[in-house]
């Protein structure tokens, strides 16, 4: 594989950038693989990469019904954080933060990781108490957390509404300085390029139509490009999880819902951090191009359509304007939607299943992007070793039977009830 560097850039400038190697190949599927990963999104690509890198398993195929990075890894708001209170989530996410910091070097691909800090605003004394508790829990798990008072928040985001007669006055906030953003497409492309170079077949435009299971063991996958045999199969298909589960006669604690995001026209740099509204569901950051990147609530009903509906967008932006009044002056550039695998306790599932050789990675709700490296790393471990790693032991499928739910916010699929 050609290494990307300033020297290769200069060298290729002389040939008008016509001689760059392709970043990944377009192979036809082989008859058989050791591992098939279904879903060429961030999690699937990362899983294949760590299977090859950490476990030396390279006879791997990624099967993607569309194009790689066309699903939620290309539709998110690029936020990376580990500001969780529960141990399972905190330790898993903080492990991921470490992978994020090293990712550009590790992949030889600039993912533009920008640890600009995230601020969760508080609008009451009770919320300040809750944030202080969450911050302390984070610090006990080795995650940086700073409780900011009103003046400290005002110094960092003076454009927020600090006037006297507001419905939700800003009391302060909880900040994780090491949180930030990354270029989402680059994450998918970086993992794809490295996985491909280590021998992984990335097979696009290949839809799974069924599974071959014999005596409780997976033996292959039926696809729109023919049957492919496999010793092990991993599902990384986010919002499409229930469609594949139905083919396997499985019913999961997952509902598929629609989440929208939007960006404004680009403006000059004014927002240094990722900021979330504490009295509703709205978050905002500014992209390197200057667009305000915004998101909020689910549309609120089961949906597989990857486009949103206006009432939710209006509701979300109303909250945005309550937080940042200047947003009302901006024109909207683009809105889009993706489909989320909402789990019943709001936490993900990375586990084995009752079918031998079939592994499940789902339930990311709308926190999937930041989990990309840690999810891929632990899922690769689970597949390669046929047992969960201690980092994803809490993300078991049977916790809904044992009662070991990880109810970080106690919301599950009905997030709008908060």
């Amino acid at each position: 594989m050609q290494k990307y560097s300033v020297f290769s850039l200069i060298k290729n400038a002389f040939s008008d950038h016509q001689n760059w190697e392709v970043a990944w190949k377009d192979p036809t599927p082989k008859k058989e693989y050791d591992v098939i990963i279904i879903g060429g999104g961030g999690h699937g690509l990362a899983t294949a990469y760590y299977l090859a890198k950490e476990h030396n398993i390279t006879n791997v195929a990624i099967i993607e019904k569309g194009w790689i990075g066309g699903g939620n890894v290309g539709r998110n708001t690029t936020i990376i954080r580990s500001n969780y209170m529960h141990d399972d989530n905190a330790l898993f996410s903080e492990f991921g933060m470490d992978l994020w910091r090293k990712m550009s070097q590790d992949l030889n691909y600039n993912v533009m990781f920008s640890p600009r800090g995230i601020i969760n605003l508080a609008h009451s004394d009770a919320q300040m108490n809750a944030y202080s508790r969450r911050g302390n829990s984070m610090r006990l798990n080795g995650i940086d957390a700073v409780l900011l008072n009103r003046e400290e928040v005002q110094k960092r985001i003076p454009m927020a509404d600090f006037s006297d007669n507001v419905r939700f006055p800003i009391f302060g906030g909880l900040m994780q300085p090491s949180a930030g953003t990354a270029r989402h497409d680059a994450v998918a492309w970086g993992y794809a390029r490295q996985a491909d170079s280590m021998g992984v077949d990335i097979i696009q435009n290949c839809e799974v139509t069924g599974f071959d299971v014999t005596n409780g063991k997976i033996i292959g996958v039926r696809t729109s490009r023919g049957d492919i045999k496999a010793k092990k199969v991993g599902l990384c298909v986010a919002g499409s999880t229930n469609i594949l589960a139905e083919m396997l006669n499985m019913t999961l604690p997952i509902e598929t819902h629609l989440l929208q995001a939007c960006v404004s026209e680009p403006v000059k740099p004014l927002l240094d951090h990722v900021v979330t509204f504490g009295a509703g569901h709205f978050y905002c950051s500014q992209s390197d191009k200057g667009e305000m990147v915004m998101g909020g609530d689910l549309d609120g009903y089961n949906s597989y359509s990857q486009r949103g509906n206006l009432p939710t967008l209006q509701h979300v932006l109303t909250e945005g304007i309550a937080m940042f009044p200047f947003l009302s002056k901006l024109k909207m550039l683009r809105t889009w939607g993706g489909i989320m695998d909402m789990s019943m306790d709001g936490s993900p599932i990375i586990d084995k299943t009752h079918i031998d050789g079939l592994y499940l990675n789902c339930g990311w709700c709308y926190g999937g992007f930041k989990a990309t490296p840690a999810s891929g790393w632990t899922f690769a471990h689970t597949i390669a070793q046929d047992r969960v790693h201690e980092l994803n032991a809490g993300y078991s499928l049977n916790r809904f039977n044992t009662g070991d739910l990880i109810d970080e916010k106690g919301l599950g699929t009905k997030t709008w009830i908060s």
Partner: protein
Amino acid sequence: MLYIFCPHCGLRSQNEFAYGGDATVKRPELNKEISDKDWDNFVYLRKSPRGKHLELWHHISGCRQWIKVERDTSTHEIFKTYKADELTE
């Protein structure tokens, strides 16, 4: 914007409704002995199909009645709506 036909009030915009989830899920019979597993499955497991989905909506800003809506989850087309006690075979 979804437009939902309330069997009690007529055609109204989605803003008047709250979503109540899958209407085909059946609560186990009251006071009947069931296994923990059956209860967990009732509480947590959902088919969440792509395509036709029978679901509950609450006309919260209208007549405050619960209704059943048959809707396509990939196109958002609404085929038919029912009163809450209809279709209970």
